[in-house]
């Protein structure tokens, strides 16, 4: 038992990346002690890896072996490993680096190692990580943590997209100019369109998987998206992203309620907000798209669209927690403000790190955020 029992009882969270040890975990045997004949894959390992990949879960390696061992393990297991850390440091540090590189939170990581000392070290240093022995892992494939409810084309291509992301980040590091210039140089195209029924599985998946960029702080079932798409009182926008490195598909979306004159939603919301207020029920973006101008484009699109339709204010009710600070940064950069925004309010709510809620507002009477020319879509505002 390695924390598996408690993890199973916790809230439904899904693992996005499994970090594997090599010796006696991915491989049957010890790489450096195997002499001429390198160790074969552990029994059934190839099937486990490909099954998890098909569910949209990616793989990484953390090992004290030389990098050649990771190459060998990848080759014999047929696994697609999006990151590998080989070295003598603490495994918890290596896992932290992988989490940062992939931009995945620790509670969306699993770590599999046959060595109880390594498992204890990682459990102690990184409590949110789901730590498993290889025996646990064989069973865990059937657990809810490893069984996302929907698997979209975007999810199945996740491994490939992380590889593109690595190439893009390498290019960015060697690029001299501003981020805007970099996005332009790699042919970034952001496309905003009204959602259709075909987008529903991906919208649901995004709502479940996003935390750093999720205004509601919770997922929405497919049924809810379907009715929102077809309701005249709401609008659902999807955001697609591609560049010369690859096509990320749908990476973001937002759900709006319109109470503009002539489009009153319900008496309640009109009475509460008055005509001319648009309320964003859900704003979300894949963390993979972070730093690529997507959330900025979506917020600018929303503001300009609402203004063109005659609204005076856009309101975004937001969960406020440690996880979605990136969303608050994007809101601040776009000019949104919470009315009760002082430091004292946060302390009154229970101090740093305490979850809360706030409504962020943008007054459309001021200067609207710009939409760059690489952002497009029908009826661009």
């Amino acid at each position, binding site marked *: 038992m390695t924390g598996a029992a408690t993890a199973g009882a916790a809230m439904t969270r899904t693992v996005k990346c499994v970090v594997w040890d090599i010796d006696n975990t991915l491989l049957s045997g010890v790489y450096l002690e195997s002499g001429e004949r390198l160790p074969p894959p552990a029994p059934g390992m190839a099937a486990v890896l490909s099954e998890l990949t098909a569910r949209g879960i990616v793989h990484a390696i953390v090992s004290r072996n030389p990098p050649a061992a990771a190459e060998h393990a990848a080759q014999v297991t047929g696994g697609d490993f999006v990151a590998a850390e080989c070295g003598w440091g603490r495994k918890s540090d290596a896992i932290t680096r992988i989490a940062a590189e992939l931009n995945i939170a620790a509670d969306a990581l699993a770590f599999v190692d046959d060595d109880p000392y390594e498992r204890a070290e990682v459990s102690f240093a990184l409590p949110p990580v789901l730590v498993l022995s290889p025996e646990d892992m064989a069973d865990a494939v059937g657990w809810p943590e490893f069984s996302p409810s929907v698997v979209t084309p975007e999810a199945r291509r996740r491994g490939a997209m992380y590889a593109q992301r690595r190439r893009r980040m390498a290019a960015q590091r060697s690029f001299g100019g501003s981020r805007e210039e970099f996005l332009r140089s790699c042919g970034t195209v952001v496309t905003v369109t009204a959602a259709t029924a075909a987008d529903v599985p991906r919208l649901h998946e995004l709502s479940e998987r996003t935390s750093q960029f999720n205004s509601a702080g919770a997922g929405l079932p497919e049924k809810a998206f379907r009715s929102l798409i077809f309701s005249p009182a709401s609008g659902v926008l999807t955001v697609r992203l591609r560049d010369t490195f690859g096509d990320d598909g749908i990476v973001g979306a937002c759900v709006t309620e319109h109470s503009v004159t002539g489009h009153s939603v319900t008496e309640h919301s009109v009475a509460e907000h008055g005509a001319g207020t648009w309320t964003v029920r859900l704003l979300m973006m894949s963390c993979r798209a972070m730093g690529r101008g997507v959330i900025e484009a979506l917020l600018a699109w929303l503001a300009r669209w609402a203004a063109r339709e005659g609204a005076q204010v856009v309101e975004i009710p937001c969960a406020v927690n440690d996880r979605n600070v990136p969303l*608050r940064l994007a809101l601040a950069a776009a000019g949104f403000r919470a009315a009760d925004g002082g430091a004292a309010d946060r302390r009154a709510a229970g*101090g740093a790190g305490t979850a809360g809620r706030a409504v962020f507002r943008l007054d459309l009477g001021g200067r609207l955020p710009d939409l760059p020319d690489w952002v497009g879509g029908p009826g661009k505002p």
Partner: protein
Amino acid sequence: MTAAPGDAGTGAGSADGAGSADAAVTAVTDEIRGILAAATGRPEMLGIPADMPLFGPPVGLDSLTGTLLLREIHRQFRVDVAGEDLNLDALATLGSLAAFVGERAGGRNEVS
């Protein structure tokens, strides 16, 4: 600009110990310039003035670089800017951020 309470304590005009407080804020400002340069990959950040806005060009702080900046400030100064400042007013300018951090870091960054 900043919503931080107690700004008066770090103001340039405060009487007793103003010299050392100013020196501390200057040191924090320099460190934040370094963090910004690393987060954005742009060495020209080392030369920006204290009254430079962080959002919008030319700094163009966004959700990615902003997250890297806040994470590093938390690590180096043990100050959780996002935890204390809902609207992130502290990020208005380099100077407002340095004042916010300097005021809360106290002597703690000297200890660690």
